[in-house]
């Protein structure tokens, strides 16, 4: 029975349980639903939840734990001598899994019995399964053991899941009587669901940070942290040619901050002014056309912006400014990427700020206008201060987008790590280097690869710091109108 089928069956069980529990509750008070503690639907929902939630929970837990346990026990039985030279038990186990899957497919076609080893190998290869090593007796035995154990465990799982579902349904059915507080139970259940959803978001963040942290610690065991943070050169040599990499983060951070700064200098004033015009001055008709148009900018994929930077903005800046002034002859430059990224960020700033400015109560405007302030004085002295926390939030969102942006930088600013003040030089950012360190043939044990995690974690810490700083600023200077 496949997973979707199991889930469908559980849903059917839940529905049946819903109907039965509801019916029993109504019957228990002689058909007069007003004498029930809760609405009949709540008894039904209670039945549905009791039938489905514990069973689904067991199913998920089983699906996570079973492969781990199974592989451990098969691996323990696998003869040490049968592991090919230069291979590990981990690699062998992944072969075992592949062979078992392939055999399952072949067995479905009923063509397994009495084949020799070579024939089987040919059949498996025909099925499109690539293997790390030749098929050996030990491997085949292990694969067959694996299949058998998996089959029986799946059967046990099926029985266990449905037993739990049935028990839950029966228990709910039994309890569905007049005095039972079904509504309270269902609402507690919903509450738990909401808490679970919130915790998943938090735990995922935690998980991401932890995984980065471990890899980063790995990196710092192989590479001196002082060199990482203080060296002004980024020059990774590729592993295999024997170490000697210089992995200093400073040039990358410099590029990131430089490009982000230019992007913000472009996007914040333009976005903010656009928002002020749209929310305070523009007529309804113009606003209803202009706002969606600006928001289209936000929907353009960043790679398209990158192309724009590469083909149009870069050469234009070079020919119009950089070359005549003798500032450089490269089409990819910090300025190109910063400008284009700034354009990309305009809708973020303007759209969010516009919403926030609109949320400032009309009473504030009336109060200020009623004192004889002009519209622009009102905006400057009352509306912007009142909207400031939200505007800072919008700018911050734009800043973290700028720091995390990759595509525009690759195409607009190039991939050369450099430490320079000239904005018409090609530079690169942390994110670009993370990509280039992790693409291609990588070995996850060398510092050249692991450095990506250290870079990522540093970036994470920086954006976190920015957020904390912004929160502090907002709290200190906020003018709350409620």
């Amino acid at each position, binding site marked *: 029975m496949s997973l979707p089928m199991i889930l469908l069956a559980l849903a059917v069980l839940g529905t049946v349980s819903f109907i039965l529990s509801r019916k029993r509750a109504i019957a228990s008070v002689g058909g007069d639903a007003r004498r029930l503690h809760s609405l009949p639907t709540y008894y039904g929902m209670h039945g549905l939840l009791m039938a489905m939630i514990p069973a689904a929970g067991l199913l998920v837990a089983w699906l996570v734990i079973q492969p781990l346990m199974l592989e451990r026990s098969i691996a323990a039985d696998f003869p040490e001598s049968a592991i090919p030279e230069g291979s590990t038990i981990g690699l062998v186990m992944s072969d075992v899994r592949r062979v078992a899957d392939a055999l399952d497919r072949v067995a479905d076609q009923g063509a397994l019995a009495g084949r020799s080893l070579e024939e089987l190998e040919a059949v498996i290869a025909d099925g499109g399964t690539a293997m790390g090593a030749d098929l050996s007796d030990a491997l085949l035995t292990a694969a067959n053991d694996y299949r058998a154990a998996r089959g029986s465990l799946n059967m046990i799982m099926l029985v266990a899941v449905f037993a739990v579902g049935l028990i839950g349904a029966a228990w709910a059915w039994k309890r569905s009587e007049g005095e039972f507080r079904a509504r309270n139970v269902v609402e507690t259940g919903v509450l738990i669901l909401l808490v679970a959803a919130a915790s998943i978001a938090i735990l995922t963040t935690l998980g991401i940070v932890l995984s980065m942290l471990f890899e980063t610690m790995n990196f710092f065991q192989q590479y001196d942290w002082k060199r990482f943070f203080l060296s002004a050169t980024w020059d990774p040599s590729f592993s295999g040619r024997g170490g000697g990499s210089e992995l200093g983060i400073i040039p990358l951070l410099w590029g990131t901050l430089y490009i982000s700064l230019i992007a913000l200098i472009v996007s914040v004033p333009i976005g903010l002014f656009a928002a002020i015009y749209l929310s305070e001055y523009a*007529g309804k008709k113009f606003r209803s056309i202009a706002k969606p148009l600006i928001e289209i900018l936000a929907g353009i994929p960043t790679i398209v912006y990158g192309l724009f930077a590469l083909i149009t903005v870069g050469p234009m800046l070079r020919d119009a400014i950089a070359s005549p002034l003798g500032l450089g002859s490269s089409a990819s430059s910090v300025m190109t990427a910063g400008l284009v990224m700034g354009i990309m960020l305009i809708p973020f700033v303007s759209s969010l700020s516009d919403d926030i400015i609109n949320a400032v*109560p009309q*009473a*504030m*405007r*009336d*109060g*200020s*206008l*009623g*004192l*004889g*302030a*002009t519209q622009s*004085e009102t905006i400057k*002295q*009352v509306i912007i*201060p*009142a909207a400031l926390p939200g505007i800072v939030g919008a700018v911050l969102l734009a800043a973290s987008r700028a720091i995390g942006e990759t595509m525009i930088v690759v195409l607009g600013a190039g991939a050369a790590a450099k430490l320079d003040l000239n904005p018409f030089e090609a530079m690169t950012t942390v994110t670009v280097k993370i990509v280039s360190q992790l693409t291609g043939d990588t070995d996850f044990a060398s510092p050249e690869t692991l450095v990506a995690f250290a870079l990522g974690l540093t970036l994470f810490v920086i954006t976190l710091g920015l957020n904390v700083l912004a929160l502090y600023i907002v709290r200190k200077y*906020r*003018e*709350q*109108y*409620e």
Partner: protein
Amino acid sequence: MNDMRLTERAVGTQTTKITARAVQVFYGDNHAIKDVDVDIADKTVTAFIGPSGCGKSTFLRCINRMNDTISVARVEGDILIDGEDIYDKRVDPVQLRAKVGMVFQKPNPFPKSIYDNVAYGPRIHGLARDKADLDEIVERSLRRAALWDEAKDRLGEPGTGLSGGQQQRLCIARAVATSPEVLLMDEPCSALDPIATAQVEELIDELRQNYSVVIVTHSMQQAARVSQRTAFFHLGNLVEYGETGKIFTSPEDPRTESYISGRIG
């Protein structure tokens, strides 16, 4: 005390501050104010009463051209303050609003400190020569709004942190700080409890010594308590206008009589 007021009343009723002639207001197609003529005297409290939607707030907002901020609103007719047409092309509504202060229904202090709230108008209009001058204006305005004693030790705290009644008095102080000649109040007590209402009413009575006060109110008792003259609006028409005592005791129009006795509303 009462004698003094009586003499003041006699003086106040003689000079007319605001004159309105054939005022019409349209909100889009809705004819909200129909042909209103009224003379509002200086240094008196004039109350506008009437059922909801009768146009009394709309008319109030004509006096400082706040209706200009609503794009669909259109005003016809003449409104004169001290004989000067405020809808004349040469009049800057911004200047006008400095001269005609307004207090709104819901207290709307700016999200700034108490001091900055009061200093807002003087700063915008450049009324203070230096910091000391501004301090003095703030203190005088807060005293006039009977808020000084409560607020003097917390001038730096946000105005939004005050209680509802204090906030409304802060708004009155804010309006007074620009030294207006007319003070418009749009149901200034509707969001306040009885004690705060009593404080604001007392304040209105004191403000009468310096300003022409026009107050819109839903409460007939309030109109009777604070005003010297009362205008009754009904369905966009000014039905009756005269001495407060006369309106409440012997109204001429049957509609006024029914409203006051609670039969229409």
